């Protein structure tokens, strides 16, 4: 074997504390090294060209570059090696910048360490083998999980690009949180006026199949070829017959059914259409409250329905869909403020409500018909306090992060309060006003300057009913340096957000990571914000972190672009750094099958004997199987036992 070694100076980044010339000189003595040199910038065009030239000139079989982290430039140099006519896996990198020159002060020690890392790379390269990708077909169909504004955007963009889309929504109607909002900042335009048309587009798009009341239950397969089981809960209404006339709602006797859509601000009926613009505009029955389904008696809706759409015998069903990519857009939920904020009443005070509940009070389609009325006595409040950061930036309850959009909607709600009740006064208790978006700060200034909202910089310590129907809100005006208090009629809490309920379970189903707050983890927080670490699974909207509407829509389009890009290729290439089985050594014990996190290994009967077999497109290359097999029968290409042992032996030989 003939190996070429190229040591990069990275300007003075490496050469400043490593004697690159000496490292190159030392490398000449390593086994199989036929050429060794140093260069100012290996990643530059001349640097790369030099590799190509030398491979040809010295007839090299493999290349070692000692420069920055392989996480930075491994792909760059692999392409260069490929240009030189070698297999791109006949290449190794020694990280002498991040791991040597930037962290060590002693030039001798650094130079020695750099040489050793080069030697390790050479020893590993001597055991490398050319690897070849396989190509495989993809299914030109995408699954979008969650039909809030981000999911809707992703679904529409994909569908418009000609892909088939399966859109799955847990609730009876699409629209997510945005459908519950009255107006939106910073323009104060009506939420349903801008979202409504998009929802209609979803229902009418020929490329979109919509499953409401549905959840993803199981996902198998791999990028380009996923198989998804979708569980659809029985609506007890035949959608093909229901016209959405609403007659059933008028007559349903179960009038105390909790109203999820209205954030429990009022009751609804057991059979209902959540809101007038609902898509699909079909009635569904809440089986927990329907008298027919719980007690066996009633059946009024079936009698009244003019099209005979009611069917109490309907059962949950499981639908299987084959898709090539998946977009998770499951959004957020409010954190559980009641168990964490006893000082705000912990849910005991009826007139201390969440901002999402307040949206429903503001909405003309809401339980109060758009009149702001106190839940306790139905009176119109004249003084309203808004409290920011309830469940955000509070590490004492394990919520260290900023929920991002509360400052803005709080300003919006203060403005709307004044619009609804001109003689009202709003107080906003905030810690910092976070308004970095386009036209955002101008908007908060308007709330203060034009609408007379009183902003007080301080976290509220306690809300205490005064026994006379009002609530004393106690805070400090930290700008004044004094405790302050104000008696108000209604308190609105800007409750922090977390990943939607059940997001952890979905993450495990999708094999993606999630954090302690139920947010899904992106591949790279800055550079790969819509990708996940599982190929073919993308993220849109607040499921990845708190986001306002513009960002959610942008990320929805971003995820769609990634999906379209992925599925536009005629075929996909697999990564050849995967496990493979030496059939002769395998005794068929199946330990690798048991531990594989991706179900990528199966047991096959090969000529009467049970042997492990790797499904190439499913294997992600973690190497857990290789560490498990006692006889070393399964090896991870590019990280074989012998390759790692060679590195160990290069460092420790006695």
């Amino acid at each position, binding site marked *: 074997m003939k190996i070429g070694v190229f040591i990069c100076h990275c300007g003075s980044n490496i050469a400043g504390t490593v004697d690159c010339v000496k490292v190159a000189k030392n490398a000449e003595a390593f086994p199989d090294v036929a050429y060794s040199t140093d260069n100012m910038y290996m990643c530059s065009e001349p640097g790369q060209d030099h590799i190509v030239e030398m491979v040809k000139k010295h007839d090299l079989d493999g290349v070692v570059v000692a420069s920055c982290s392989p996480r930075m430039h491994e792909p760059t140099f692999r392409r260069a090696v490929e240009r030189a006519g070698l297999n791109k896996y006949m290449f190794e990198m020694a990280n002498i910048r991040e791991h040597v020159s930037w962290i060590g002060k002693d030039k001798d020690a650094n130079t*020695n360490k750099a040489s050793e890392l080069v030697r390790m790379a050479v020893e590993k390269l001597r055991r490398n083998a050319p690897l070849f990708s396989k190509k495989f077909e993809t299914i030109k169909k995408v699954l979008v999980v969650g039909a809030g504004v981000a999911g809707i955007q992703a679904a529409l963009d994909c569908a418009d690009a000609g892909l088939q889309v399966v859109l799955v929504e847990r609730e009876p109607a699409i629209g997510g949180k945005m459908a519950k909002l009255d107006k939106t900042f910073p323009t104060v335009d009506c939420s349903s006026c801008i979202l409504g048309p998009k929802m209609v587009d979803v229902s009418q798009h020929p490329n979109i199949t919509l499953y409401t009341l549905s959840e993803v239950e199981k996902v198998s397969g791999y990028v380009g070829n996923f198989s998804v089981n979708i569980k659809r809960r029985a609506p007890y209404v035949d959608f093909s017959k229901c016209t959405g006339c609403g007659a059933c709602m008028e007559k349903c006797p179960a009038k105390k059914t909790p109203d999820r859509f209205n954030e429990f601000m009022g009751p609804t009926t057991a059979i209902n259409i959540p809101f007038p613009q609902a898509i699909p505009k079909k009635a569904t029955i809440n089986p927990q409250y329907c008298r027919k389904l719980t007690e066996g008696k009633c059946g009024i809706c079936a009698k009244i329905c003019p099209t005979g759409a009611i069917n109490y015998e309907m059962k949950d069903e499981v639908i299987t869909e084959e898709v090539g990519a998946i977009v998770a857009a499951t959004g957020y939920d409010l954190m559980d403020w009641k168990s964490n904020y006893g000082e705000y009443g912990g849910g005991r005070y009826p007139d201390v409500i969440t901002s999402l509940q307040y949206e429903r009070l503001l909405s003309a389609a809401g339980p109060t018909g758009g009149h702001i009325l106190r839940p306790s006595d139905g009176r119109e409040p004249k003084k309203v306090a808004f409290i920011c950061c309830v469940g955000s930036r509070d590490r004492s309850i394990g919520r260290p992060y900023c929920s991002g959009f509360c400052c803005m909607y709080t300003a919006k709600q203060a403005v709307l309060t004044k619009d609804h009740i001109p003689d009202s006064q709003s107080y906003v208790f905030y810690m910092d006003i976070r308004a970095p978006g386009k036209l955002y700060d101008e908007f908060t200034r308007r709330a203060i300057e034009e609408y007379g909202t009183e902003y007080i910089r301080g976290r509220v310590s306690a809300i205490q009913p005064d026994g006379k129907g009002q609530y004393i809100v106690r805070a400090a005006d930290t700008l004044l340096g004094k405790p302050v208090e104000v008696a108000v009629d209604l308190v609105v809490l800007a409750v922090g957000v977390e990943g939607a309920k059940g997001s952890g379970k979905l993450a495990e189903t999708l094999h993606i990571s999630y954090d302690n707050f139920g947010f899904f983890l992106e591949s790279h927080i800055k550079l790969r914000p819509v990708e996940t670490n599982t190929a073919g699974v993308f993220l849109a909207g607040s499921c990845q972190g708190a986001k306002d509407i513009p960002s959610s829509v942008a990320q929805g389009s971003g995820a769609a672009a990634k999906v379209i890009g992925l599925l536009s290729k005629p075929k996909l290439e697999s990564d050849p750094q995967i496990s493979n089985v030496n059939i002769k050594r395998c005794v*068929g014990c199946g330990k690798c099958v048991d531990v594989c996190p991706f179900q990528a290994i199966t047991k096959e009967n090969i000529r009467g004997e049970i042997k492990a077999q790797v499904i190439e497109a499913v294997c992600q290359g973690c190497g857990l199987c290789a*560490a498990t097999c006692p006889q070393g029968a399964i090896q991870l290409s590019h990280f074989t036992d*012998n390759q790692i042992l060679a590195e160990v032996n290069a460092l420790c030989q*006695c």
Partner: protein
Amino acid sequence: MSVLTGKELRIVGFLCNWCSYGGADTAGVARATQPTDLRIIRVPCSGRVNPLFPLKALLSGADGVLVSGCHPRDCHYSAGNFYARRRLELLKEFLPIVGIDPARFHYTWVSASEGPRWKQVVTAFTDRIHKLGPAPKFQDAVPSYDMPDLAPVAPLRNLSCGANPALEDLKKQLKEALSDDHLFCVVGWQKSFDGLHATPLHMRKPEDVDKLIWGPFNVHSTANMIPQLVNDAKAAAMVGVKRGDPIPPAKKIGVVVKGCDGKWLVELLQEKLIDRDAVEIFAMGCNGTVSYDRIIAKIGAGKRIDSVEGNGDTLRVVADGQEYSLSMKDVAQDKCRACTVPNAPVYDHFAGDPVKVSEDAKPEAAAILAYLDGLTLEQRMSFWRGAIERCIRCHACRNACPMCVCREYCVADSREPHWVTQEDTPVNKLFFQLIHALHLAGRCTGCGECNRACPMGVPVGALKLHAARIVRALFDGYQPGTKLEAVPPFLGYEVEEKNIPEHQIEGA
């Protein structure tokens, strides 16, 4: 190439590509100054780190080894670090038995964003290794040839060597089973060249059953022949079958088992190396077996055994015409003294009454472990340095082991992978024994055949006993071979491990 003498020590790191390698990069980007000793090997996942890699490094001259992966729950491959945690914890606790300071091995979790934390970990671990100084080298250890005179521990129950009254019942069951030709053969024991030794018995016809013996001399394990016999039975069934014909069912293999045989049988079944349908198990309660070494120690070596007779606790041996009266208390095998499973956990036929063991019987630590525990790390290294010199690499230990299922594909004999070289060095010889012990962790049923088979008297069984007690402590008393449906500890994980602490380095 070597470490800078006097300045650096040899520290090897295994870092997962996604989190910790990224964390080390992040520290670099932030120009977080660190000691220069560490050399990082990049692996895709901490789950890729076979504990044998760090072990190999430590045996080959590393002064410290550091493994770092993604934080639990954050694994790029969702669960690799959970498996790694169990395996690396085993290694950490295993090291001191051969005299390696477990402080020289550390595993931790660092994410790609935790540059400052990476700096702390490297700095603190390097400090620790510098405080410990250069690691003692196994090949340079002063060999100690002291083999302690280990007093056997008291048995948990009464052991006896008298005739088992249920033997006739067992024979009757065997004859019945053999009469209808559904068994390929039944494996048991028969008398060998003298009364003391037994040899395997293959019963094919009812009359073969008369040769079956049962008692204190059924010492050797018959495990190794079972998978082969299962294959033979399959092959026999295929005789005369033409291509395209339906495959006829194979006959079953009968196995006569004591409690301890029952355990390796459960392990083989659990590891799916034999099908439950392929074997028919004949069990009987066991009252203990003898140790040849102990008997020979009593009567003297080189004598011809004339006759042996057991009665209750007393074993009457006539050798070279002289009579010796021995007690089972003195001559029983160590494993029988600590045995809590005298009856096979899984069987098809059971003869006689099961032997009872009190439920709260807790075996004492084996004498050899108690002895090793009393030594310093340095003394332990000397002990093994001396003991391993005797090893002639005959691999009888491996060949006798019921759980060495790799057979001809043992990594000791392979170039691909090339774990063990053919060099005749103490390190190489020890490394093979350590591989054997770690491969058996969570699987070893404690049959003691490795020790018995060793012609050179190397106490290799101690390594497996040590691994087994770590497994018991980490996994709520897990005992291999007692439950067919159990998940072996190293093939599973818990998100929150009850008994595995988060290891800290002082100062990090």
